[in-house]
């Protein structure tokens, strides 16, 4: 009997369990194949909702379901932590010492935030004037404070890349602008977005289309800022090169790392514990019978639920090919799409992959849309909220979402004008980092 073991029952792991149980329903019935999924939590959290929770738009109960209700009946579920993977013997060692043998291993254990990796962030002031919204507890604590906050300097900082949902910190800034406007105290709040990147919008098409949003919403920008330490009592965020941003309330997006057990498995993950895989086939570099998916892997694509959704179809086919001893043919193209909340009941939609930047146009159909790309609209905001339904009933069960395709389609998009082959000429001007205001 073949045994497929999935580590992690978040978005990616749950989709894979549903897809593989459907693909192999006959083999499972006649006991030629067994699928096991391991996770230490009882509940499944709808992570996109964590952005809205601090602003009272969602409550915790809106975002949480039991894992067992999201998984197929045919999967064997084990609620346990993971100690390590023994790739040489094809075994997973659980926290209690139990061993699981596998023929194929899928690592879908996602990311976790590590605020204690930044000096001072979890010291004095943590939970009082320094927060994060990437965990349920963190988002709930922040909601409590925002409700009572009377104003001051709000600083949103990304410690380093990569992070899950790279636009969420910017969305937070836009939502904060809306939230404090609704509360009538916007003039008492100073919002600053502090990023290690060299701009808020690093892709050319996005910069052209969206930079105006920062000015319109009164969001200050500090770039090329690599946070080295936080002084909570004095409200100072300090970079490695000693630049300072003062704050009264700091919303940090802490350093992201992969699951702990990856550190105990030599050769499996990089220094941030992301599983090293082939970015097209999703097969681990360590061994051919190990695969990865979702936030847990080191591919140069956004860590987003939509990436996991598109990766899942590729991975399902490649696992099928692997079990048949055939070459892995299916290739992930880096496809990601997402709705970006911009506040005041509007959002914008972007759709892109490894090779194509977010482009303007209509999604999914040319001309008809209905969702405008790279443009604010109320329909996109409705789409973002509707997405919660799509998540539970279409995405997690591994179903096709109407209007979308696994590989990014150029349908409806307006490509960039082609740059003519110019003769080799003078160098373009350098862009030096922005000074702190």
């Amino acid at each position: 009997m073949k045994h497929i073991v999935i580590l992690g029952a978040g978005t990616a792991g749950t989709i894979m369990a549903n897809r593989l149980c459907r693909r192999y329903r006959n083999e499972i019935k006649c006991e030629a194949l067994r699928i096991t999924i391991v996770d230490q939590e009882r509940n499944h959290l709808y992570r996109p909702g964590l952005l809205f929770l601090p602003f009272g738009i969602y409550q915790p109960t809106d975002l949480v379901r039991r894992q067992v209700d999201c998984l197929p009946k045919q999967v064997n579920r084990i609620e346990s932590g993971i100690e390590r993977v023994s790739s040489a013997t094809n075994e997973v060692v659980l926290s209690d010492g139990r061993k699981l043998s596998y023929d194929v291993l899928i690592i879908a254990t996602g990311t976790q935030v590590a605020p204690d990796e930044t000096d001072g962030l979890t010291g004095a002031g943590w939970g009082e004037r320094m927060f994060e919204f990437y965990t349920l507890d963190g988002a709930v604590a922040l909601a409590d404070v925002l409700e009572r906050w009377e104003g001051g300097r709000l600083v949103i900082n990304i410690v380093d890349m990569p992070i899950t949902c790279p636009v969420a910190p910017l969305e937070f800034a836009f939502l904060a602008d809306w939230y404090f406007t609704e509360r009538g105290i916007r003039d008492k709040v100073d919002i600053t977005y502090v990023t290690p990147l060299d701009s808020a919008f690093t892709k050319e098409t996005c910069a052209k289309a969206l930079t105006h949003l920062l000015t319109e919403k009164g969001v200050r920008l500090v770039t090329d800022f690599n946070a080295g330490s936080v002084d909570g009592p004095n409200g100072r965020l300090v970079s490695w090169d000693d630049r300072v941003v003062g704050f009264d309330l700091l919303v940090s997006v802490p350093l992201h790392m992969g699951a702990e057990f990856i550190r105990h498995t030599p050769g499996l993950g990089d220094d941030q514990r992301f599983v090293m895989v082939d970015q097209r086939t999703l097969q681990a570099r360590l061994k051919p019978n190990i695969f990865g998916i979702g936030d847990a892997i080191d591919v140069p694509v956004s860590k987003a639920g939509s990436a996991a959704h598109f990766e899942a179809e590729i991975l399902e086919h490649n696992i099928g090919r692997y079990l048949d001893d055939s070459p892995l043919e299916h290739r992930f193209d880096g496809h990601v799409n997402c709705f970006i909340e911009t506040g005041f009941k509007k959002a914008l939609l972007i759709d892109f992959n490894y090779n194509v930047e977010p482009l303007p146009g209509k999604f999914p159909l040319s001309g008809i849309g209905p969702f405008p790309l790279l443009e604010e609209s109320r329909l996109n905001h409705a789409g973002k909220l509707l997405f919660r339904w799509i998540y539970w009933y279409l995405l997690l069960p591994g179903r096709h979402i109407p209007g979308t395709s696994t590989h990014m389609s150029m349908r409806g998009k307006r490509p960039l004008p082609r740059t003519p082959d110019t003769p080799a000429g003078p160098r373009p001007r350098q862009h030096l980092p922005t000074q702190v205001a």
Partner: protein
Amino acid sequence: MTALSQISIAGKTVDVDGEGYMQRPEQWDRSIAQEMAEEVGIEELTPRHWQVVEFMRKRFLEAGSAPSIRALGKESGVPIKELYLLFPKAPAKLAARIAGIPKPRGCI
């Protein structure tokens, strides 16, 4: 696609994006690195500079993206404070430019 153009540097023609970051790392060589460094105010590339540049290229070729400053600080053998001395103000970005790899970017 990012809008591409070609430039002439150290006697070679290479593909760059709108900000002058190389898009095809295989077109790079050390003389290009020297010239890029001079353009951003680094007169001479010392062995410590090369250690960082070589690490960046290796990591990019393995993982498809430039390492973050933290990864650089931890894994290149050159600590973060020193990275700021070698590549002033924006080490991860400057080192990427000199190493002939695409600039570190977000998703938007």
